[in-house]
């Protein structure tokens, strides 16, 4: 189980690194799918099978497909890749990356030097998750319903193609 965790987290980190360095949007999306599948494996090895399944179904299955549809609708292809190549110069990405990596090194140093906590992984079954979700977290579930409703209405409203009808005096 530990070996699975280490292998899949290495795959997740590698695939995520490939995501942020690709020029072509579809290549980045496919690497991100790989990264999410690896993250699902990490969740499984941490003893959370329900979350692992949801990661595959919702993240890799629904959200990424949404992205792929948008990339296909906007017809982002070779031109976008060339543009990205032009934008992604060394002097553009070096500064923020180095600073972020220094911060990451600090976090890793803190975590590495901290006290050694081992955790015994035991599977938290979906039944416990469901009882907790519809027990003490019921208000959060209802608020999430509000949020999803707002998301649907917002997406439908913003994404609507409206033909602008100007008064004839305002037309050029």
């Amino acid at each position, binding site marked *: *189980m*530990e070996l699975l*965790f280490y292998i899949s*987290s290495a795959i997740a*980190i590698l695939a*995520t690194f490939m995501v*942020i360095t690709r020029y072509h*949007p579809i290549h*980045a*999306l496919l690497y*991100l799918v790989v990264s999410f599948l690896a*993250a699902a494996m*990490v969740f499984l090895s*941490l*003893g*959370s099978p*329900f*979350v692992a399944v*949801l990661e595959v179904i*919702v*993240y890799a299955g*629904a*959200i990424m497909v949404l*992205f792929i549809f*948008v990339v296909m609708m*906007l017809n982002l292809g070779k031109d*976008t890749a060339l543009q*990205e190549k032009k*934008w*992604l110069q060394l002097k553009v990405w070096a500064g*923020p*990356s180095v600073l*972020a990596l220094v*911060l990451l090194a600090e*976090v*890793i140093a803190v*975590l*590495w030097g901290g006290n*050694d*906590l*081992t*955790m015994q*992984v*035991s*599977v*938290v079954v979906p039944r416990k*998750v469901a009882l*907790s979700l519809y027990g003490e*977290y019921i208000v*959060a579930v209802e608020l*999430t319903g509000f*949020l*999803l409703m707002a*998301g*649907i209405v*917002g*997406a*439908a409203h913003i*994404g609507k193609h409206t033909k602008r009808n100007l008064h004839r005096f305002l037309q*050029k």
Partner: protein
Amino acid sequence: MASFNVNTVLIVASILFTLGMVGVLTRKNIIFMLLSVEIMLNASGLAFVAAGSKWHQPDGQVMFLLILAMAAAEVSVALALVLQIYHQHKTLDVEQLKELKDEPATAESGD
């Protein structure tokens, strides 16, 4: 079952989060920025699940579910915005999208 060092899982989560943050900071294409935000949300979810797994409680997984729903709502609205932006400006470069900024007087009027 297996036993991990807690810090290892948190280090993996923070590496993923930093990669997403670097993506947001360095990319100019708005689709890549959205992808990087997804990476960051996923990394924070990993930290939640690891914490829940440490204490054998389902709370971490519940929190991951809430993050998942939030990510889905955010992505749907953001992609609708991307479609509108591309429809109106014919570009996804975030530096071109400065309609709210005060333009100098040379900007053409009427449109």
